[in-house]
């Protein structure tokens, strides 16, 4: 499966496919934007109290996750109306160490808004999008212990 960028200004997806980082950066380019910030979250070889992480398996409530990404994009645009393009892509399925699990890109006329929006998007994604991480490490396997209750709405102000 290959992800195809959409026609509009926001590229939001929850997918089993490998995340196309270069294509996401390309999508975010805009003649009016002088700042493009890209954050990639990658699979790390350890978790809190769990050395030797080998794989992560992400499960999503797909309909709810896609809705939440849309809400989050709208919240970011309300806060930074000058934003150019936004990308939020999240993997599902089993990933090995080093693979990209999430990509967030924000473009804006100037760097401050691009940095601030990208930071806001990844922080709020973790609170508002229904996705769960299952870890397999040297000593066993289980759901991530770094979980927080799902928030129905993105924060209006930066935390």
């Amino acid at each position: 499966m290959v992800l195809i960028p959409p026609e509009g200004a926001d590229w939001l997806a929850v997918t089993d496919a490998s995340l196309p980082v270069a294509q996401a950066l390309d999508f975010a380019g805009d003649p009016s934007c002088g700042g493009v910030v890209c954050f990639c979250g990658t699979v790390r070889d350890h978790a809190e109290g769990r050395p030797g992480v080998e794989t992560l398996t992400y499960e999503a409530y797909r309909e709810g996750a896609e809705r939440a990404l849309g809400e989050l994009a709208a919240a970011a645009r309300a806060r930074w109306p000058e934003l150019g393009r936004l990308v939020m892509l999240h993997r599902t399925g089993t990933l090995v160490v080093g693979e990209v699990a999430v990509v967030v890109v924000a473009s804006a006329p100037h760097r401050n808004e691009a940095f601030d929006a990208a930071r806001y998007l990844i922080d709020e994604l973790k609170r508002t999008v229904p996705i769960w991480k299952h870890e397999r490490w040297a000593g066993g396997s289980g759901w991530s212990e770094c979980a927080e209750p799902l928030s129905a709405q993105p924060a209006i102000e930066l935390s």
Partner: protein
Amino acid sequence: MVTVRLFGPARDLFGAPSCVLDATALDVLRDELAARGGPSFAALLARSALWVNGEPAGASLALAAGDEVAVLPPVSGGC
């Protein structure tokens, strides 16, 4: 009847990815699920959000036949 879908650790503790219940309001359904799923599941359910038909829902929302309720335990997306 209302279809309930369970995700992540809630699915594991409940022991099934879905079930069908007869409940007319969301708070009633929450109590029924807690009773069915056992103490560990009930403790997680207390920290879980319930969405109806793909959207966040008020705690005592009325339910109709054919509605789908999602049980969403604390989330751990990202990295």
